[in-house]
C-alpha cells in the first residue's frame, strides 16, 4: 500500500510540474484555437483529478494498516534490493546499456548466462552450452537469414571478434 501511495504521489507531483512546464515553454495560442499546450494540459487536469481520487481511495481503504505499511516500507525496500526481481531488472538495464558498445554476440551470451543463473539454472556446463547455442541460433536466424542489423560492438577487439565469428558463418 505504502509503495502504491508513493508512486501515485510521485506521478501527481510530476504531472503538476508538467502542467506548468508545458504552459511556460509553448508559444501562446489564439483564443479560438487549441494550442500546443492546451491538449497536454487538458490531459494533465484529468490525470491529476483521477490521481487525487485514487490517492483518497487508497488512504480511505487502508486507514487501519497505513501505519504498519509505512513501518514495513524500510524492510520491504531492503528486501526488494536483495530480491531476484531487482537483480533481474538490473541485468536487463545493464544489457541494454552494453548492447551497442559491446555488440550483440558478447552481450547476448553474457545476458543469457546471467539471467539463466538468476532463474535457477545452476549447472555451469548446461548454462554455457545452451547460451552459446541460443546466441548462434538468434544470430543466424536474424542477422544471416533475415538480414536484421545486429550491433558488432564499438570496442575494437570485440568488433574484430564479431567479424571473425561472422566470417565463419556462410552467407545466404
Amino acid at each position, binding site marked *: 500500500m505504502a*509503495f*502504491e501511495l508513493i*508512486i*501515485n504521489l510521485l*506521478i501527481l507531483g510530476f*504531472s503538476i510540474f*508538467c502542467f506548468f*512546464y*508545458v504552459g511556460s*515553454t*509553448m*508559444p501562446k495560442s489564439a*483564443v*479560438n*484555437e*487549441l494550442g*500546443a*499546450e492546451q*491538449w*497536454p494540459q487538458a*490531459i*494533465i487536469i*484529468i*490525470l491529476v483529478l*483521477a*490521481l487525487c*481520487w*485514487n490517492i483518497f*481511495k487508497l488512504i480511505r481503504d487502508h486507514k487501519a494498516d497505513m501505519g504498519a505499511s509505512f513501518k514495513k516500507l524500510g524492510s520491504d525496500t531492503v528486501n526488494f534490493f536483495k*530480491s*531476484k*526481481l531487482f537483480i*533481474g*531488472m538490473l541485468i*536487463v*538495464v545493464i*544489457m*541494454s*546499456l552494453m548492447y*551497442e*558498445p559491446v555488440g*550483440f554476440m558478447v552481450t*547476448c551470451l553474457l*545476458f*543469457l548466462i546471467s*539471467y*539463466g*543463473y*538468476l*532463474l*535457477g*539454472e545452476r549447472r555451469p556446463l548446461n548454462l554455457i552450452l545452451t547460451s552459446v547455442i*541460443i546466441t548462434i541460433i*538468434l544470430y543466424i536466424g536474424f542477422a544471416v537469414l*533475415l*538480414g*536484421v*542489423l*545486429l*550491433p558488432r560492438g564499438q570496442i575494437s577487439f570485440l568488433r574484430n571478434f564479431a567479424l571473425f565469428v561472422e566470417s565463419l558463418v556462410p552467407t545466404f
Partner: protein
Amino acid sequence: MELLTSGLAVVFRPSMLFMVVVAVFLGTLFGALPGVSGTMAVTLGIPFTYSMNAVDAIVFLVAIYCASITGGGMTAILFKIPGVPSSAPTTYDGYPMAQRGEAGKALGMQLICSAVGGIFAALCMLLLSPQLTQAALSFGPAELFAISFMGLSILTSLDTDNICRTIISGMLGLLMACIGLDPLLGVPRLTFGTRFLTSGIEMIPVMIGFFAVTEVLKQTYKPAKLKAVGDTSSGKLSAELPSLKEFLSVKWVVLRCSVVGTLIGILPGAGATIASFLCYSMEQKISKTPEKFGTGCLEGIAAPESGNNAATGGAMVPLLSLGIPGGNAAAIMMSALVLKGVTMGPLLLVNQPQFLSATFASMLVANIVMVIAAVIIAKIFVKVLAIPYSVLGPTIIMMATIGAYATKNTAVDVILMAISGVIGFVIVTCKFNSSALILGLVLGVICESNLRRAYTIADGDTLLAATMNILSRPVTGVIMVICVIALLWPVLKPIIAKKKSEGK
C-alpha cells in the same frame, strides 16, 4: 473477386507461403507458451518483418496473431494455464475434459472452432472494410477525431473493477504521446531540453518493454509451474478431430460466437479477451443445459475459441479501413506498418487495396494451415513446454532486444525498452493497466492532431464557439454521444444496480 485473387497471389508466392507457415508455427508456439500473449507473439514477430515489404509484413504478422490466439487454447486445455488471456474461458471446460482423458477431443474441437471463427471473421473483414473506407473518405478532421476518441472511450470498460486506475493509465499514455515535436507547430514539447526526446516516444520499444520484458520480470518474481494432465503422460497426445455429429451439435454455438466475436473485434479497444468471456457467458445463459458448463462440455470450448478467433479478424476492420487499431496486437501491427512508411487511414485501402486482400488471404490460409500446424505442435508440445524458463525467459528478452534495436538501429530504443519493462512492472504492481497506457500512447497523436486541425478549420470567435461548431457536425456529434455513453456506462452501471437492489 479481383481483390481475392490479388491477395491469394501475394500469399501463395512460394517465399511468402513459407513465411506464412513459419508464422503459423511461431504464432501457435508463442501463443501456447504461458506468459507469451497474442500481443507479445506479434511483438516478437516484428524483427522477422524488417527485411519484408509492408504487404508481406502485415501478412506475416496477421498469421502470427491468428495462430497465437489458437495456440493459447492448448495450455488452457492441457495445463489449466491460458497461453493467452483470451483462452482463459477455455480452461473452464477444456481442462476437465483433459482430466477425463479427452484432451485429444478437446484440442480437436478447439482447433476446428478456432479455424471456423477466424475464417468467418476474415470474410466479414473483406466485405465490411471497403464500405467503412468509403464512408470514412467523406470524413474531415472532426469526424476522424471522434472515431479515434471512440477507441479511447473503451478505457473505462477495460477493467471495470479499477476504472480510476485505468483512466490514470490511459492519461499517462496520452501524456507520453505528447512528448516530442508538436504535430502542428513543429516545436519541441515536454522534451525537457534533451535531444533524445525530440523525436517522441517510439511506440515499438515501449510496447516490447511493456509486454515482453515486464512478463519475464513477472515470471522472475513469481515463477509459474506447469504440469500437464489427461492423456499427455503417455506421450501419445494427439489432437484428434471431433466427429461430424459432435461438431454439428455445436454449429449454432460456433455461428453465434463468430458473429459476436467479429462485432467485438471491430470495436476499438475491445479485443479477443472480452470476446471469449462474453461468448462463454452468453452461451451459458442461453444453453438448455447450463449446468454442464464448467464440467467439461464441448460447447464450453466452442464458444470462447470461435469468439476469440473471430475477434482477430474483427480487429483488422478498423485498422485497415480507418487506421484505428482494434486492440493491442493491431496497435503493434499498425506501428510496424508506420515504420515501413505506410500512412494509415481511410486512404490506405483506396490507394493500396492489396493490404486488404493480402490480409484476408493471410487469415484464410493461416486458419487452415493452423489446424495442421496445431496437430503437429500438439504432439510435440508437451516436450517443448519442458524447456525450463531459465532458458525461455532470457531468450524472450533477447528477441525483444533485437526487435527494439532494429526499429531505428539505435541503442536508445533498447534502453527505452528496458526502462519500459521496469516501468511496466511497477505499473502492474500498482494495479494500473498497461493496455490502457498503450492505447493512449497509440491513439494520442491521432486524436490530438485531428482535434487541433478541426479547431483550425471550425469557425468560431472563441474556443467554446469552435467546440460547438465541431460537435454540431452530425457524424461527430453522434459518435461523441456514443463515446460519452461508453465512457460513463461502466461507472453508472454499478450505481444503478445498487439503487435497484436498495429499491427492492
